[in-house]
């Protein structure tokens, strides 16, 4: 019973704190760029406004166009239920291991891309195929890193991995270091961050993720944005779970939860800071540099795998 409650709690927490994380990230970035931030709660305001706006459906678009936002949102909510963020061994966790999780993200992506192609506008399709390319190269890298972790812990179930990694005293295995680097690059790419994509751009020709949303408006757009924010949080959560797992407690012992949650929040804040730093320091790559970026990530992941076998850890 408690487990199910915890499950729900985690999902809702992620869902409703995701905008906050996004807002925090944006605020930090503006501060780092010596501009005045609009405050952490801006994302909530945006969503609220969008939800109350009328949403339009472009002519000649099919049911896919309308279905996609909900589908994507649903997918991410499910993911939020599976990844051990607050605690390991949640009831939903066994339903999908890391591989299935990656599959889930892929599913969401495919729906987004199809929805974009449904509109049949030049920019949307442009964004669509760029997205597919980036994803196509990012996915192997992501799985390579996850494989490193699961080879280390002889399991592909994320919560088992976390539980196992927590046991290890010295967690910074060389393989995991490489994996962490690779994972970070993938995170940037998958969440349309600089240097691969720029979430704040207004120049269609350079867009990837934004280009696919051009035809959306009102609640649909809101869902899409929200979904993206959740996705970012989820990725960060996975990163935390894999590389700084301490403080994620087994479901059994919820008692310590009040202690761990603040740690968790700290971790997220730190992640936001790092992201903001990176986005400020790096410049966006040309589109055709991004494959090289991905390739580097992939290679790092592979090196991680190899070093696991070579160094036995």
């Amino acid at each position: 019973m408690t487990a199910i409650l915890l499950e729900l709690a985690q999902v809702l927490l992620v869902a409703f704190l995701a905008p906050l994380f996004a807002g925090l990230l944006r605020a930090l970035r503006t501060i780092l760029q010596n501009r005045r931030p609009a405050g952490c709660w801006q994302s909530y305001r945006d969503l609220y406004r969008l939800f109350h706006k009328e949403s339009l459906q472009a002519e000649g678009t099919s049911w896919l166009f309308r279905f996609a936002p909900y589908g994507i949102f649903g997918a991410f909510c499910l993911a939020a239920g599976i990844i051990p963020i607050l605690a390991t061994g949640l009831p939903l966790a066994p339903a999908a291991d890391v591989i299935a999780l990656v599959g889930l993200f892929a599913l969401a992506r495919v729906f987004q891309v199809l929805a974009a192609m449904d509109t049949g506008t030049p920019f949307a399709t442009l964004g669509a195929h760029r997205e597919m390319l980036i994803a196509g190269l990012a996915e192997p890298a992501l799985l390579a890193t996850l494989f490193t972790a699961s080879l280390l812990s002889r399991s592909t179930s994320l919560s088992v991995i976390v539980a196992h990694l927590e046991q290890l005293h010295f967690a910074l295995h060389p393989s995991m270091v490489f994996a962490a680097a690779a994972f970070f690059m993938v995170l940037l790419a998958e969440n349309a961050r600089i240097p691969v994509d720029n979430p704040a751009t207004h120049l269609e020709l350079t867009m990837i993720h934004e280009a696919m949303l051009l035809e959306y408006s009102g609640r649909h757009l809101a869902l899409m944005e929200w979904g993206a924010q959740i996705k970012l949080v989820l990725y960060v959560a996975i990163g935390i779970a894999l590389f700084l797992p301490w403080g994620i407690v087994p479901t059994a012992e919820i008692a310590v939860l009040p202690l761990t949650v603040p740690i968790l929040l700290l971790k997220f804040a730190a992640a936001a800071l790092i992201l903001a730093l990176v986005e400020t320091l790096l410049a966006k790559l040309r589109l055709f540099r991004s494959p090289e970026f991905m390739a580097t990530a992939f290679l790092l992941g592979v090196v991680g795998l190899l070093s696991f076998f070579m160094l036995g850890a």
Partner: protein
Amino acid sequence: MISCLPLDLATGALLLWLGLGLLGFLLGGWPALACRLVFPASSVVALLLTIAGFTALTATPDHLQLHGPLPALPWSFQIDPLSGFFLILLGLLAFAVALFATGYFRSLPGPDLRRLMLQYHSFLLGMGLVLLAANAFTFLVAWEIMALASYFLVVTEHEEVGSRHAGFLYLLIAHLGALSILLGFVILAGATIAQGGPFSAMLHAPLNPFWASAAFLLTFFGFSAKAGLLPLHIWLPDAHPAAPAPVSALMSGAMLQMAFYGMLRVDFLFFGKLALWWGPFVLVVGLATALFGVLFAAVQTDMKRLLAYSSMENMGLIMVAFGLALIFRTHGLNALAALALAAALYHALNHAFFKGLLFLGSGSVLHGAGSVAMDRLGGLIRQMPQTAFFMLLGTLAIAGLPPLNGFVSEWLLLQAFLLSPALPQSTLSAVLPLAAAGVVLAAALAAYAMVKFYGIAFLGQPRGTRYVHEAGRWEQSAMALLSLACMFLGLFPGVLLNLLHPVLLEMLGRGFAIQQGLWLTPVSAQRASYSPVIFFLGMAIALGLGFLLIWSLFGRPLRRVPVWACGFPVRTPAMQDSPLGFVQPLLRIFAPLYQAERQADDAGRWQVRIGEPVYRGIYQPLNRIVLWLSAQVLRLQQGRITLYLLYSFLTLLVLLAIWR
């Protein structure tokens, strides 16, 4: 008595198919009647075959011998769990395809129809016989019948030079393949080959390493010629599109798997001891094929060609799993081998379903929109909604996305890969995860290719097709069935895995833990678990709740408006991505592989032509060499009689001199 039921049932079904073929040939005069009568009947027969397959999984293996061409050379048949599984595959696919054909060939003129019916059913017959054959001779005859029948189906539109060329290439490679399979069998069967090389005599044939490897290579060559593995795939992308859609579905979904069946039987049952390098060899070939196939699938502009290349990719994945199974088997890790093998078999069945579905769908597109050239299609989802829906399911399935079936087999495969540390050989176990990464890359690119497939053809605005009409009842029912099958295999993997158990037992002496309930835990719940149903429900609930919530809170009717398109004033279909434009990044990244050359057509538009590197690299030089040789040989015929006399004279003298 019960025990010999499946074989009787199967042979009976095959005979019925033959009869239906002849019936169709006779009824050719009344096309409408023939269509309505023969194809549904044939689908019923397919069901019989499926039942036979199911019973065969549990029944004891069973033999049947008929008097052959020579007393010592019988026609002999057998049925065992392995053939049972593939019979199920064949039967289910043939069932759906026949339903589809009922509607699809409605409008075919009599003479063509009668030919087609005969060849179609002899094709099915050939495949069935391949699965039932119990000695080398029967097997090869069945194999060639299968090849011939499918050849005739490939050249159905024999007015086009293209399809003739495709047919020739196909039959040539198939023939060479058959010859080398024959050689392999001869080596395996040894002296018993004179009795037709009974498979029972080949079981764990004692061979010295050299001959064992020779037999392995020969059979592998022969079967991969049919499976379309690199570099023998050359016929595949031409032959599959040339055939009518139902036939393409069968060729791609079932015939390729016959090759896989052959490999399984030979490599797992006939070889007592496997050489170390076989498994890695197969795995590498498979991986290369998968990547090559998907990269070329992505850049096709013809729906059926794209699907053909994607078949290559899927065969590649199956081969990877197969190779992995071989590796584990070689090191005596039969449990792990069972997992890999299960992945392979699972994927084989999946591929039969979703590839069949997609080929049938493209057939309805051909009928409905009059073309399968993607640069003339677009926005079909509006005029043919049902077809579009089924195709969407097929696309998601083949893209390996949860909770559909394609994902399950890939998941199993990756699980098997992650067990590689169990291998004693450290280098091998270190390299295998890289192969896993390669598999993932192939899968991701496959998603790319298939999204293109669906998006370009069914979404966006029409690129020039008018007067599109939806597929007929028969077609729709067939596609619905196949997509249901995809859903089922995706949601309830446990069912199939339990069915696979006897097959694995036969091949490896052990299966893996019986799956119960909604959970898929091939090794242990700790190790890895996946529950598609819960997965699906969870997503559905989240989706539904979200929808209800948002609708109730902010629900307002949508307003239909013209597309904004960033306020761009003009908007023509040509502004969407073209089939090649969609994959332009790939063209750019893998430029050396594609050898793409751009040239302006008479309308002044740029046309990009993709080269086939294997064809240029291997087949053309080979062709040149052979032709040169023949030119040299023909110099013997100079026309001068004195010269000819000189030949005889010298022959005589040389022989006499040698003898002395």
